[in-house]
Structures are given as C-alpha cells and as structure tokens.
C-alpha cells in the first residue's frame, strides 16, 4: 500500500475553495449528496486530493474515509491531477496482444508512478485507455495529441526524453 497522501503539491486557490463551499452548502442536506458534490469538486479542481476531500468532510460531517472509499470505488474520480503531458497507453485487444502491457509497465517503472497517477513535478500523468482506432499501428500510445505507434519497450525512454 502506497500512501496516496503525498503527490503533486496542492495548488488550490481561494476562488476554487469558495466555489466548492457554495456547492456543498447547496447540496449537503440532500439525500445522497456525496456523489454530486464529488463530481462538482472534480470539475472545479480537476482531481480530488486529500485537501479537497478534507474540505468536503469538514463541511458535511461525512467521515474522510467514507469519501475516500467512494472516490477509490468509482473510476470517474481521480486522486491525481493530469500532468502537463498526459500519456495514454492503449490496452485495447490489438495493442495488448502486441505487447502494450509491457510498455505500460515500463512507463510506470520509468516515471515512478502507477496508472492514474501524476509525477510529483506535475510533468507527466499516465493512464491506460481503450481502443483508439489505430489498431494498424499497434501497440499505440499518445502524449497529449501526439500519436506513437509500432512501439517496443525500448522506445519508451526516447519518447519521455522528448518531453522532459
């Protein structure tokens, strides 16, 4: 178990907090308020770090663990921000049989983060994605809008170096 507490430094603004508090005030007495509050919070901040979850806990009385349990249950919520460069590795069937799983693992090792996470300098975030319709180029990954195909594990270093 890696503690999910330490990640990219939190850069929330007072404006964002004000907006979140307004949402909480509006919704907190509704039944099942947590999901819509979390969705709004993620819209505001882009992700749900401990600082944001603690604001929600302190202002709704919902235990932090309960909030964290919901956030880690649903794939729609993220504990990590998106990096300056978002790397998406296709784990669709064609890419997977062509070895994209190894590429994904190599990226995790190289960047020192797991899937869904962001490097502490905020530079790279890493995701797995479903088929992006470029099966002819399998295995495929994208960095923001750039597409890289017919990859081998050895290409990973070069690609990262381009953006670092």
């Amino acid at each position: 178990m890696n503690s999910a507490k330490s990640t990219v430094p939190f850069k929330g603004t007072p404006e964002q907090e004000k907006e979140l508090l307004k949402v909480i005030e509006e919704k907190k007495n509704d039944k099942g308020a947590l999901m819509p509050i979390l969705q709004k919070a993620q819209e505001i901040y882009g992700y749900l770090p401990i600082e944001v979850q603690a604001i929600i806990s302190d202002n709704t009385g919902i235990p932090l663990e309960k909030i964290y349990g919901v956030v880690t249950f649903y794939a729609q919520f993220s504990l990590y921000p998106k990096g300056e460069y978002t790397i998406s590795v296709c784990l669709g069937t064609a890419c997977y049989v062509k070895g994209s799983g190894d590429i994904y693992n190599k990226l995790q090792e190289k960047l020192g983060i797991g899937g869904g996470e962001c490097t502490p300098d905020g530079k790279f975030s890493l995701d797995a994605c479903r088929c992006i319709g470029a099966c002819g180029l399998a295995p495929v990954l994208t960095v923001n809008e750039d597409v890289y195909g017919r990859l081998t594990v050895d290409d990973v270093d070069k690609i990262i170096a381009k953006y670092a």
Partner: protein
Amino acid sequence: MENITVKINGVELEVPKGTTVLEAAHKAGFEIPTLCYMKEINEIGACRICVTEVNEGRGFRLVAGCVYPCSNNMEILTSSPKVIESRKRTLELILSTHDRKCLSCVRSGNCELQKLAKDYGVEDATVYDGVNETYEIDNSAAHMYRDNNKCILCRRCVAVCSKTQGIGVIGANERGFKTYIGSAFDMGLGETSCVSCGQCIAVCPVGALSEKDYTKEVMAAIADPEKTVLVQTAPAVRAGLAECFGNPIGTNAEGKMVAALRRLGFDKVFDTDFAADLTIMEEANEFIERVQNGGKLPLITSCSPGWVKFCEHYFPDMTENLSSCKSPQQMFGATAKTYYAEKMGIDPKNIVMVSIMPCTAKKFEIGRDDQSAAGVPDVDYALTTRELGRMIEHAGILFNSLPEEKFDDPLGISTGAGVIFGATGGVMEAALRTAVHTLTGQTVTDLPEVRGTDGIKEATYKVGDLDVKVCVASGLANAREVLEKVQRGEADYQFIEIMACPGGCVNGGGQPQVPMGIRNFVDIRAERAKVLYNLDKSMPLRQSHDNPAIKKVYEEFFEKPGSHKAHEVLHTSYVKRKVNEI
C-alpha cells in the same frame, strides 16, 4: 402485529410478519451460521454464509437467511445438501484469500471462520488458491494492529465504527478484488481520529484485528528481581474473564482472578475499584464546587479514555466540561507510585504498574501527557482482559479449579460504588451517592433510573434544595447525540456520564470476544453488568466516602478532595484535536 406461519425443517412455527429467516430458524431451534451479520448494525447480506433454502410456492431457492423476511406458508430448509454445499463453497472462496496461519493466530480456538471450516468439513482450503493481494500490517495505533491478510471483508468493524460509535475512520477502499478495509488515503489508524475504543476488535470474527500484546514484557518484569510488580484490575474484568475459560457469560470471576494473578507472580494484587472510589471523592467534590462556584457545567465524566479522545477530536470546545480527574486506572498508578511507594519505601522507578482492563483505549491513555505524577508513567502496561486470559493459559494455571482469593491491602479495599463503575450509569450512581451525602448528610444507594443498557438515560434528582439533572450515555454515537443537544441549548444537564463502549466497560473493546451468533441473540452488556450490580449489593460498604482505605489515604497523603496535592497527583489536562488532521 400480524402473525404468519412458516415451516422450518418440517417444524411449523408462527412468527410476527417481518421476522427474518434467521430469526425464525433460531426460534425453532436451528442455528443458521453468519459472518457479516450484526443485528441492527450490519444487515448487509454480503458474506452468503447464511444461505438457506426457502420455498414460497415457486420451488426451493437459496436466499440470504440473515436478511430475507419470512412470508406466509414459507418452507425453510436450513441444512439441506444444497445449503451445505453452497456454504462450503463460500467458505472455500473466503479461505482462498485468507492468510491461513491458524497455528499461531491469536484467534485460534475462538475464530469464527475456523469453526465454520471445521463444521462444514472444509478439508482442502487451497482448492481456489490463486493470485493474492498482500498487505502490510498496520501497527501505527498505540492500542492495536490490523492485518488485512486475514481480513474477510465482513465489514463488522466498519459498521461498529461508523454506526455504533459514529466515527467512521475505517471503511472499504478500492473495489472488486482489490477491496480492502483501511483509512482515508491509506493513513495508518494512528494518524486518524480513531479513539482507540477497540469495538472493531471485539466484533472481528477472525484474527485481522487484535490489541498490541504486552504479556511478554509483563512476564519479563515479573521475572526481574529488581522490580516490584503491582497489578490492578478494573471492575469489568471480573465480569468477563471467566468467559476465556469456557464459563457462561455473566460469571463472576473476582476471587479466581485474584488467585490467578498471584500465581502469575505479581507482588501485590490490587483493585482499580479502590481508585474508582478515589475518583468519586475527587469528582463528586469537583461537581459540588462547580455547582456552588459557577464553574463550567455540565460536568462530564472522564473515566473512559475512548470518550475523552472522542471529545478532544469531535467536541474540542467542550473539553472544559470534562472532569479534570484522571481515570481510575491512572489515579491508581499515580497513587501507587507516590503514596504507596513512599509508605513502603520503594523507589517509584522500580515499581512496574500493570493494569488489567476491559479496554484498549487504556493502552493509548498510559502514553498521554500529564499522566506521570511521580516523574515516571503512572501505569507501565495496560493489558486487556483477553491478554490476561492468554497469560493464565500460557502459565498453565487451571483457572476453573483455583480457590477464591482476596485482594491485597490497602489498595485492594473498595466499595460497591467502585465496582459498578464498569457498567453504564455506574459512575453517575456512585458519584451521586457521595454528592448527596456530602450536601445533605443523607444516604442513597440504589438509583435505578441510571441503570440498564439504554444508550441514553436521563433523570432529575432532588438533592437538598437543588434539582440535579443528569444524563448517562454509552456508545459514542449516543454521546454525540447528547452533546449536540447540549450545544444547541436544548438540554440543561448539570452532570453527564459518558462511556465510549455501548453498555459501558463490561462491553469494552478489550473484553473476551463473543461469537456474533451468540451476540445477536444475547445481550452481553446486561449479563455482564449483573455481575457488578450483584457484587455491589453484596458488599458491606456501598459508598465511596465510607471506604476506610480512602479515608486513610486522605488522612495520610492527600488531605482532602480537591487539595493541592490531589490536583498534582490525581488530576490531568486535555488537548484540543481536529477530526481531519491532514
């Protein structure tokens, strides 16, 4: 209420509408096994060990007996081949992700999973072995550890933490195969606002949760000739310990417990009840002073360290309401290492003070600040009732054949007021006995209004020309309800007793674990409390202020309740904490 008829294994039975299959079967004399089910607290039908065949006119099918309601003319089969096969399969699946280190597991012998595996003839626990998650053991809390490798995800601990105690610092994280029970952001339990009540341990069916065991350290101290090893036993321990040795719930173990402690080699076997009497002297005095001098009211008791920590985290604005009295455990240690050490000419550094407690929060309490009257910790080791049970077992002491023995003098002398401290309402009753006597000279003993297992009790007593409004709460969700009422100005109590565990210390987090199949049908709080109230009734002295040892300790050492010396030794301070420390 409307009644319906069901047929269970051929036995016809009338039950009220809404009765579950499990309850109906129990009434008919058939046990349906459960793992996740806790009556009214965790009715989630998740573990599927309770599956039972029912026929509601469309043929037999399997349902979760713990939550499925009976319908009229329902036929129920609780142990058909299909039922047995399904339960066995479920057990095999649970065991496939369970760390099966049963040989040395702390729960071996009273593990609910182990018993089921035996009952259902699971001969090969490895049939479904495959990829497994492994988890680090969480040792961060002062009082306990969590070993998720043994966790079966029944969620009883989660339910008791959030519903009974209103805290919710543990819950299910992630999903599917990766699901585990833990705290937010994988913080260790010790980093959260956990109050150390240990109710999660008391309800854990397996060895995933347990107190930190200090029995080896205590045995080493006993073996050290340099050390004088004193032991004190909390009131509720005598109401639970006998269960460790196969005796029925509600057996009084006092005499045999004393005999066992002596045979374990403790130099003196003393009674926390003495310190409970001392607490009453100080607390009743504090109450009277606050009432007469316009001090902060309501005064709230401070005997329960789980409650104290809860107050610090969740009601930091009310810590001034807490009595400044140390808990009886700490008062005992403080008195032993000052008054008794001086009297006997022992250097307090050479005294090892061991306490036997029904409580896990006591393990946290001994490490708090402002709990070392003699410059060394008041108490060195706080063991649970369960740990004492294990020590007795390891030492090969035949508990059930021990003679009944008496506590040592002078710190083993106590009254009926001290012994009822272990049940909800007991501290209030004991304090009122002494407060009434101090204010009016009258003697009151039985106060039935504050007895019983209700989570919240209220009463008003006429004391001289004073109307004293009191409230007693046990279980922290109930405590929260009471305190919120006080904060909203809807209640004007002068005196509140709060115990963290439902029913008080008799049902503490350090008491012997009782299988949920029994707990769901027997009120262990009431059964154990009876032991204490019967003891109170049988004692010649039932008022703390009549305790001759207490009179003497004031004459020789503390002068009078609330004196400067008493404050130095017997009182403490609190800190304000947050709910979410991030």
